[in-house]
C-alpha cells in the first residue's frame, strides 16, 4: 500500500520536475536556468530516497542521496562564480 503511495508521490514529483524543467529550458537568463536546475536537483535527492523505499533497500540508496545533496550545490556555485568574476549576463 505504502509502496503504491510512494510510487504516485514519485510520479507527482517527476511531474513537478517537468515544471522546473520548463523554467530551466526557457528561462530568459542563465540564472533562471540555474534556479530551474537547482530545483530539479533538490527534487532528485528526495526521489532517490523514494525509489529506495519502493525497492525496500533504502539503506543502499541513502548514500547516493547523501552524496547528491553534498555535491549538488557545487555546480550551482561554479555557475554563479562565473558572474562574480565580472563577466556580464548577456554575451561576454
Amino acid at each position, binding site marked *: 500500500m505504502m509502496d503504491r503511495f510512494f510510487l504516485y508521490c514519485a510520479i507527482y514529483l517527476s511531474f513537478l520536475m517537468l515544471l*522546473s524543467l520548463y523554467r530551466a529550458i526557457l528561462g530568459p*537568463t542563465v540564472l533562471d536556468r540555474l534556479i530551474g536546475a537547482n530545483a530539479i536537483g*533538490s527534487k532528485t535527492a*528526495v526521489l532517490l530516497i523514494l525509489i529506495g523505499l519502493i525497492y525496500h533497500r533504502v539503506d543502499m540508496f541513502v548514500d547516493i542521496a547523501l552524496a547528491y545533496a553534498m555535491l549538488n550545490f557545487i555546480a*550551482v556555485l561554479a555557475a*554563479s562564480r562565473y558572474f*562574480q568574476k565580472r563577466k556580464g*549576463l548577456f554575451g561576454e
Partner: protein
Amino acid sequence: MDIVDIAVAVMVVCGLIFFTGGAVGILRFPDFYSRLHPAGKLDTGGSFFMLGALALFNLEAFSLQTLLVSLKILLIVVFVFLSSPTAIHGIVDAGVRAGLSPWTKGEKRR
C-alpha cells in the same frame, strides 16, 4: 494502516504541497529575484518534510541499521539546509554582479 503510516502520509503530502508551490512559483513569478524565493524556501521546506517523513517511515521496522539509515536521511536534511541557502546566495550574488535589476510592478514579465 497504523499511526505512523498516517503521519508519514500527512508529512509527505505536506512536502508535496511545498514542492508544488515551489514549482509553480518558479514557473509563474515574474522575474529572477522573485523566483529565488520559492526556489530557496519552498524547495528546502519540501525537502525537509519529505525526507523527515521518509526517515520516520524507515524507522517503522526499528533496528540499529534502520536507525543509521534514518540518521543519514536527517543528515541529508542538514546538508540541504546548509547548502541550499548558500547556493541561492551565490545565485543572488551573481545576479547582482551581473547587473540584473529587480522587477517592479507594471513591468513586463521576464
